[in-house]
């Protein structure tokens, strides 16, 4: 029984890290700009498709048609030669194998640009408008992004293989000195967990220990005073939006080996990340992280047959049930501040 509970707990931590990472960018935007960003899921999806695109480039092939041979369906045989391997040799093979980690480096500048362009181009004009208008425009943006991706890449999921060395499961039980093959967990999920921890830690450190972060925090607390002191807080908030886009995009890139991405992948996470943010407290970064882990662990345990035998279907509603209870008991969420969305 111990190993069952340990595995569910580990799984909860893993899910929680993913939830926290996805919700982090959302709460970052809300805390700084005060905008409820329904395009956040689309940013996650765009990150995932950065990985798809990088892999497409890395696996480009030259196609020569050999008319002397026929395919079983009666067409001239296409002979395909990988291009990158031809140019770069073994290093090309390594690049293709590690396409997902390589995509991280490329996704950072791309997502930063997309984020800044979105904020400067559209969202900036909606700061003084009601929340409903902000929701409509960001939701509209999400739909546009989805349809653009669908028209380019088609509606079907595109699998992204993880590096061959990182496939399969790690024997955590054996590491801890227990019997082999009892507690095993996919290596890539452990990496995602570590990655989420590093990104979340980096964002916290950036806000806590840099002058830029200090100014941003001051702006979150009192935007007007910071502006009066002669600081261009808008520009810093624009960069924060870019940063949130990067966080969402990286979450998307790293998630592609776990879930073959299609144009709709962001929507699956949008609702969830909103619940995490609301439970954690609107605009609270530690709240989002705490709520992410809390909901991840609860969902994992609620999915066990033993739990479902007592309350059938609990695995499907647990997250929303917890959200309702927490909002009834603590209307501002776990770590929500007074005055956020309460004017």
């Amino acid at each position: 029984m111990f190993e069952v509970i340990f595995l569910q707990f580990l799984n909860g931590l893993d899910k929680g890290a993913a939830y926290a990472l996805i919700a982090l960018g959302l709460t970052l935007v809300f805390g700084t700009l005060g905008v409820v960003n329904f395009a956040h899921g689309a940013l996650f999806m765009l990150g995932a498709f950065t990985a798809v695109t990088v892999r497409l480039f890395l696996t480009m092939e030259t196609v020569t048609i050999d008319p002397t041979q026929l395919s079983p369906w009666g067409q001239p045989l296409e002979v395909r030669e990988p291009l990158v391997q031809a140019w770069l040799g073994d290093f090309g093979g390594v690049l293709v194998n590690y396409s997902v980690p390589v995509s991280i480096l490329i996704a950072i500048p791309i997502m930063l640009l997309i984020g800044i362009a979105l904020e400067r181009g559209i969202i900036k004009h909606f700061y003084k408008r009601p929340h409903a208008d902000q929701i409509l425009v960001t939701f509209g943006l999400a739909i546009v992004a989805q349809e653009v991706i669908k028209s380019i890449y088609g509606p079907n999921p595109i699998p992204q293989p993880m590096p061959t060395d990182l496939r399969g499961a790690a024997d955590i039980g054996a590491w801890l000195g227990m019997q082999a093959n009892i507690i095993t967990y996919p290596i890539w999920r452990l990496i995602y967990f570590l990655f989420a921890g590093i990104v979340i830690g980096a964002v916290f450190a950036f806000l806590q220990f840099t002058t830029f972060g200090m100014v941003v925090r001051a702006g979150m607390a009192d935007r007007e005073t910071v502006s009066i002191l002669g600081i261009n807080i808008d520009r810093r908030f624009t960069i924060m939006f870019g940063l949130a886009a990067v966080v969402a995009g990286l979450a998307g890139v790293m998630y592609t080996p776990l879930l073959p991405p299609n144009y709709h992948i962001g929507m699956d996470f949008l609702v969830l990340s909103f619940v995490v943010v609301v439970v954690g407290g609107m605009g609270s970064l530690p709240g989002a992280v705490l709520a992410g882990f809390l909901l991840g662990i609860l969902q994992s345990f609620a999915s066990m047959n033993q739990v479902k035998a007592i309350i059938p279907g609990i695995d499907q509603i647990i997250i929303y049930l917890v959200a309702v209870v927490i909002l009834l008991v603590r209307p501002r969420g776990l770590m929500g501040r007074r005055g956020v969305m309460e004017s």
Partner: protein
Amino acid sequence: MRTPLGSSDYSQYLTPILNSGADVLILNHYGLDMVNSLPQAVQFGLRDREANGKRFEIIVPMFSELMAKGAGEAVRGIIGTSNWHWNLQDPGSVAFTKSFGAEYGAPPSQAAHTCYVQTLLYADAVERAGTFYPPEVIKALEGHEFDGMGNGKTLYRAEDHQCMKSVLVVQGNSAPTSEFDVLNIVQEVGRDTTTYDPAIFGGELGPAEPAPLCA
């Protein structure tokens, strides 16, 4: 283990399987659900695991080429069933694969075959019934037996409207030569074996008359 339809992460349903004592996972998912759940099951090591001294097996009862493509490398070695495959060598299948390939540059999926065959069967049933009126078309199809569609002699059983035909056991190709070469036929299981007693699932078919249209 029941899972909600349309989930994206199945990890919380996979962890309890690891030490459950089971040696087979029958992954009864179709479409996107299977595309999402099969790679995750493989990542949890279920394809390469041993249980009760045997190799752990993942079985996908409803395999299709499109799903196999979406699941990527996870389908390699996975066993499942399918109703048709473009590599069947009967004259009907060969002709359909050739003409489909000439038109679209790719072999037909089992879904393409199903759509094509269903359209032919419906047209034939309408012709035999002499009308488009559904209750008459239904009667023309009940107990109708035909051949030449790639599955041998096929029967639309009158008792429960189920299609009785041979079924293919397929396996994810370990060394695909092209993006279409994802599934291999392992065995063709004859209709005698796949036919089951209609009483097992039972159920009322209901009246054949169409429901009255709302005014």
